[in-house]
């Protein structure tokens, strides 16, 4: 962690431009990792897609229903993940994919709840997000969503943690700078859920937010809080137009 700090200070002097740049993190990958993401067999994220398929077909709850019994093929949920988070005017709150699946699981399937970031939930979110691969990210940020959107933007720009850095400091001002072997990207979310070699596993957008928060030694956010979802909404809006890549591969 001390190394981060030091290198960050070094990196500051070579900070890049801060005009908006919506380039997928894929563009920063070398040929080997691009090939890994593009290889639908060897992409390790596909292990979660497989597991998601098994769960999709597994009967559960008092009525022994599977996701398939009600939804049919997972492809029926195409064009969903790319539009999330989304504001629900009836409940007056934002939902992301994890929450929609968790709600459906407990309320409609009436099966035991899936815990946040559990491998089962990740498998289902990856399966569903994978259906929208190639579709452009497109979230609604006006109307009733506008307050949350502005909160998300403010959160992105607010300095935080012992390093006193905002998301924008790194992903806009320091974009392109090297940080202990990493190149700081524009902080796009079109790849999620994605396989990070650093994690040796799959993670959601909220896990990435937690990771970045910890990197600057900031207090973690509750991943299901409206605050965290507002930030996710802003991130999705920043990534608008980029093709969804789930499951992407990143360093």
């Amino acid at each position, binding site marked *: 962690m001390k190394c981060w700090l030091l290198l960050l200070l070094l990196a500051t002097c070579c900070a890049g431009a801060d005009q908006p740049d919506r380039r997928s993190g894929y563009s920063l990958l070398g040929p080997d990792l691009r090939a890994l993401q593009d290889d639908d*067999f*060897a992409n390790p994220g596909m292990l979660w897609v497989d597991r998601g398929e098994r769960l999709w077909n597994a009967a559960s709850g008092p009525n022994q229903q599977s996701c398939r019994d009600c939804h049919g093929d997972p492809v029926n949920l195409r064009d969903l993940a790319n539009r999330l988070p989304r504001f629900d005017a009836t409940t007056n709150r934002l939902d992301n994919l994890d929450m929609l699946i968790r709600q459906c699981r407990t309320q409609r399937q009436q099966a035991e709840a899936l815990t946040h970031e559990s491998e089962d939930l990740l498998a289902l979110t990856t399966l569903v997000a994978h259906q929208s691969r190639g579709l452009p990210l497109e979230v609604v940020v006006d109307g009733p969503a506008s307050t949350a959107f502005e909160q998300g933007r403010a959160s992105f720009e607010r300095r935080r943690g012992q390093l006193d850095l905002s998301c924008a400091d790194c992903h806009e001002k320091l974009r392109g700078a090297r940080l202990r072997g990493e190149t700081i990207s524009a902080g796009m979310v079109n790849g999620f859920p994605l396989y990070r070699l650093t994690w*040796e596993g799959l993670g959601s957008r909220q896990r990435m937010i937690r990771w970045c928060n910890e990197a600057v030694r900031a207090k973690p956010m509750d991943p299901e809080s409206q605050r965290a979802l507002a930030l996710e909404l802003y991130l999705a809006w920043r990534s608008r137009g980029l093709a969804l890549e789930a499951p992407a591969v990143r360093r």
Partner: protein
Amino acid sequence: MSLSARVRIPTEARAGEVIEIRTLVSHPMETGFRVDSFGRRVPRKILTRFSCHYDGREIVSMDLRPGIAANPYVAFRFVADVSGAIELRWEGDEGEVLIERSHLEVIRA
């Protein structure tokens, strides 16, 4: 994540054709060298062996060590000579075993 495999095995080949088997299996390959945030060593948990039987013959076996990346990927090739069962097998240091079976039909020209 529980042990499960993705495998790509052709089901048909011409006699003498070189075919490839690709495998990917979910396993953390915890090295035993890593230290957690409390300074405690994370105990080793790895797959130790991978093998392939083709028509009853063990044609390939592989010792897996901590230097193999998490979610191990292994690909290899062989000459299809007879029709027969293909059995891929992974063994872990906790006694776990995962087996994937399929059949290769060899067509004589």
